[in-house]
């Protein structure tokens, strides 16, 4: 079966002199939960934006849900996105709508079901994330974890084939974190979807994903199943998995000599 996301020799740069992604090869099979990991600024969110079609590759190929994202016009892009769901880092809920209206939004925009069916669908989606009782609340009345769950309910409203998660664990307490991890896995399996999780929370994410791509400086430097990543000998991966202060990624940002900044004689 054709992979749901297939990326070959992909490069991306906002300006030619400063490439953000280089020589990326990646293949994601249907039904998998895949993690794209690496430190902040390594290019993983940019890669996610290429997959969702928000950025066009500077070179190489990105095929998503059978579409070559380089050739899609706006209508084609929107047609592709109707088969995708996206969970943003902080939920990105519409603050002028209630929880119910947020989940109903994509259904109203695309499906326009009768009111009774719409109500049933919204209640079912909210029940799937455990927040049926919070339907009447506004986003400002939700905790961070609840907001993330409502956003998850909204992102699965159209039963997507591909669900993208951008840093889904940031700022969550342990209980909310556990709930989100379980929901990601359960929803992926029950919907028969494929999930891509972009995160720098390595230890937490390794417990939920089937396969990992590890990125550094715009490249994929390691890949494999979670156990292979945990036992990787790649120095960068080791530093990241163990949370070591020193390693390939130095503690200090590049700077002149300390003595020179303090104006001390050598």
């Amino acid at each position, binding site marked *: 079966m054709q992979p749901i996301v297939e990326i070959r020799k992909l490069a991306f740069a906002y300006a030619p002199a400063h490439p953000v992604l280089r020589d990326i090869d990646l293949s994601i099979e249907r039904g998998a939960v895949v993690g794209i990991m690496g430190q902040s600024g390594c290019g993983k969110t940019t890669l996610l934006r290429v997959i969702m079609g928000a950025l066009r590759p500077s070179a190489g190929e990105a095929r998503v849900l059978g579409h070559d994202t380089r050739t899609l016009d706006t209508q084609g892009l929107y*047609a592709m*996105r109707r088969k995708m769901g996206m969970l943003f880092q902080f939920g990105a809920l519409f603050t002028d709508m209630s929880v119910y209206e947020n989940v109903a939004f994509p259904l109203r925009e695309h499906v326009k079901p009768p009111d009774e069916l719409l109500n049933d669908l919204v209640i079912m989606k909210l029940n799937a994330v455990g927040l049926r009782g919070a339907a009447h609340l506004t986003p400002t009345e939700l905790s961070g974890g609840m907001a993330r769950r409502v956003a998850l309910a909204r992102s699965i409203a159209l039963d997507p084939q591909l669900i993208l998660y951008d840093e889904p664990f940031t700022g969550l307490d342990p209980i909310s974190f556990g709930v989100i991890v379980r929901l990601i896995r359960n929803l992926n399996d029950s919907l028969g979807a494929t999930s891509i999780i972009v995160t720098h929370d390595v230890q937490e994410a390794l417990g939920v994903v089937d396969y990992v791509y590890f990125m550094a400086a715009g490249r994929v430097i390691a890949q494999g199943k979670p156990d292979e990543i945990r036992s990787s000998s790649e120095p960068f991966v080791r530093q990241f998995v163990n949370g070591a202060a020193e390693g390939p990624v130095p503690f200090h940002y590049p700077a002149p000599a300390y003595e020179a900044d303090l104006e001390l004689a050598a």
Partner: protein
Amino acid sequence: MRIVDLRARLERLGSGVTTHVWRLGFASRFLAYLVLHSGTALRRFRLTIAEIYFAGVLSLIIILVSGLFVGMVLALQGYETLQRFGASESLGVLVALSLVRELGPVVAGLLFASRAGSAITAEIGLMKATEQLSAMEMMAVDPIARVVAPRFWGGVLSMPLLAALFSAMGIFGGYLVGVQLIGVDAGAFWSQMQAAVDLRNDIMNGVIKSVVFGIAVTWIAVFEGYDAPPTAEGVSRATTRTVVTSSLAILFLDFILTALMFTGGTHQ
């Protein structure tokens, strides 16, 4: 050294001009795209009605109170001058023409820019900063058609109504001060106003002004919000720019429109 300084200044000037021209071009393309993608705002008119409430109805208090006081001051000042020439019965004409032709559209436009324009910019800017617009795009919903266009048309439709209410309230304020307080004859106040104010040359020209100001202010407000850097500082600066640019645009456009409408001796 001086030549180097001069060159650096010229380069900065050139860069500034280029940036502003580029931004004006971008804003124009944005307006064209917005108008062409207004189908959702017009088909699902309740979206636009909600924005009319937000931009128009919620601006009513400031518009009505300001209109009342402007009319009252106009009557006091006008009476002071007119009585010197024995023409105090023309007070109604002076108040009505000043309001309908000029002060109604201009002052209502300035108040609209401060109250509704800044709110529109802040709202769209914050939606962008909190990724709500990106989320909409990811749901295959065009944020310009769904969020920006209803706000644009809501503002454009609200502004002439607010200007008309401002003028009506101003005339009532002029009546209170001129007739009830000072004692100008009520018959003369109303009849002279009725005889002198012309539907096409005065009222319609005032309406045209308020429509043009409504388009300009709302265009600036939605563009600044959409183009705002997605940070607290970026949204704050965009909101300030909306008020400053809108106010200057209103005064500039008012001069151009007045020059086109009321010169050449076509109207007495």
